[in-house]
């Protein structure tokens, strides 16, 4: 089973690297250009503005463990599931000796590892750029890095978010009639996750808004740790539930008829 999962993961990564557009040539390295561009833009612009202050804000946590994995994976996962069906390669895969689970876990594994790696690499690039930023001219010397709890939170959240996006992407793709629709649905979901809390906050009374922000700013280390654990627990439960639903939906007899 592990060998089979690994085989599917390797194939998925080869497809990610090959990318969706272009033709001819050796077919390697096209897909990675777009990802590098996104990582580059996000990982250079923000730390360049903040300098070492970056390590004291929540920005890396939000960008590297929530925003980036979702941004990268929403397209990739839809392409991996709905795209494979649309390009008629899924039937051949289903007619092979691979089990349903090996195919599903292989696709999940490839996407999760990719999203996770992108988040961590982005955080590392940001750390380097933050140290090199001209904003630090008057600051102390030496290489600064994220506090241990922040680094740990980035690693954990990037993993859990990647798994969550992969599971949602799988379920959305299995229902969507084509890849484009699946990607569109995922993008709407992304916009909702990013903007709905901001919009809701705008409509709250000023007093409530101030109280909420004050509570966020004055949170103690214990409260922050508790919040972190609660969020991790929620994400784990969501991941497990969605993974189980994906397992139930991703079955040969059902897929061959879709």
């Amino acid at each position, binding site marked *: 089973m592990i*060998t*089979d999962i690994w*085989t599917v993961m*390797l*194939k998925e990564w*080869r*497809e990610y690297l*090959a*990318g*969706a557009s272009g*033709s*001819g*040539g*050796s*077919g390697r390295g096209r897909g990675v250009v777009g990802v590098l561009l996104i990582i580059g833009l996000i990982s250079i612009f923000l730390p360049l503005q903040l300098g070492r202050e970056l390590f004291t804000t929540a920005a890396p946590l939000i960008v590297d463990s929530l925003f980036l994995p979702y941004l990268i994976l929403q397209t990739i996962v839809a392409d991996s599931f709905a795209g494979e069906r649309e*390009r*008629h*390669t899924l*039937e*051949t*895969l*289903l*007619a*092979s*000796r*691979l*089990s349903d689970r090996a195919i599903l876990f292989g696709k999940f594994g490839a996407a999760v590892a990719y999203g996770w790696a992108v988040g961590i690499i982005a955080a590392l690039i940001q750390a380097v750029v933050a140290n090199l930023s001209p904003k630090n001219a008057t600051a102390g010397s030496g290489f600064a890095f994220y506090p241990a709890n922040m680094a740990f939170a980035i690693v954990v959240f990037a993993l859990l978010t990647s798994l969550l996006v992969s599971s949602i992407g799988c379920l959305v793709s299995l229902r969507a009639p084509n890849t484009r629709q699946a990607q569109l649905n995922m993008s709407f979901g992304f916009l909702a996750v990013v903007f709905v809390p901001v919009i809701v906050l705008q409509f709250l009374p000023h007093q409530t808004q101030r109280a909420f922000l004050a509570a966020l700013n004055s949170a103690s280390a214990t409260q922050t740790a508790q919040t972190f654990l609660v969020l991790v627990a929620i994400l784990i439960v969501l991941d497990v539930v969605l993974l189980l639903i994906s397992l139930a939906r991703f079955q*040969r*007899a059902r897929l*061959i*008829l879709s």
Partner: protein
Amino acid sequence: MTEAAIRATKLTRDFAGVRAVDALTLEIPPGIIFGFLGANGAGKTTTINLLLGLLEPTAGQAQVLGFDTRTQGNAIRERCGALLEFSGLYERLTAEDNLDFYGRVWRLSAAERQARIKELLTHVGLYDRRKERVGTWSRGMKQKLAIARVLIHRPTLIFLDEPTAGLDPVASAALRDDLERLVASEGVTVFLNTHNLPEAERLCQQVGVIRTGKLLAVGSPDILRQQTGRPEAEITGDGFTPETLAALRARPDIASAEAQNGRLTLELADQRVRMAPIVAALVEAGAQIEEVRRGQASLEEVFLSLMDEDRVKEVAR
């Protein structure tokens, strides 16, 4: 006694009230190319999906290589290869990467994969283009690669679903040649879905004809021709007047007679009919004969005749 490669007993599959495969009973010996002939929508693809254990039958059962399709689908897929309706190739990947992936799927070692990829791609004349993205290739080249992919793990039995569909005659003939050579060298059993009857006639040792899910006939092309198609004769010459034709049609040994552009086509009552008395009668009626050729109905004629017979039966029901 050699075990059948495929044995189906009253295999049936319904889709939302429509019977796609209707009580299919079939036995295919190992080591042959079996042609499954039928028009579009006849139930050929559903049959492959049932035999690969991808679909559960509504009724009946089937064994493939001795394994039950209902409960041992994994064991069947482990030993079989399949080229389904679409080539199933990853168009963003190179030809080599496509074969390498399926080599890994069937757990071939790195050395085995490398050797097998070289062997198969050389066989189909694509080794020099192995580093190219498959998406840039013609349909004929993709189908050749897909056949190489099907054979990568040396399967005992392969299912091919209309491999030459949509190819131009040249690509189609080239693919057929490759397929014939590969099958001969690999010694596999082939279940070939096709509606290309000349292809079936050339490749298949046995054929089955299916219409609206029902198996109408099964056997070697020769036997089907004898059972279903009437023997024919073609006479080239002059003087085939309407009176001569009427006289021929009245004879008990001739089922039908048609003349066009100095060519007289006769459908004979059966195989035992001798041509000499017919030719003598024609000469006596004033016809000038240059050539007499006797032949059998083609598989296409057999197929069409079976389809017509079944249609008539259906209307009568």
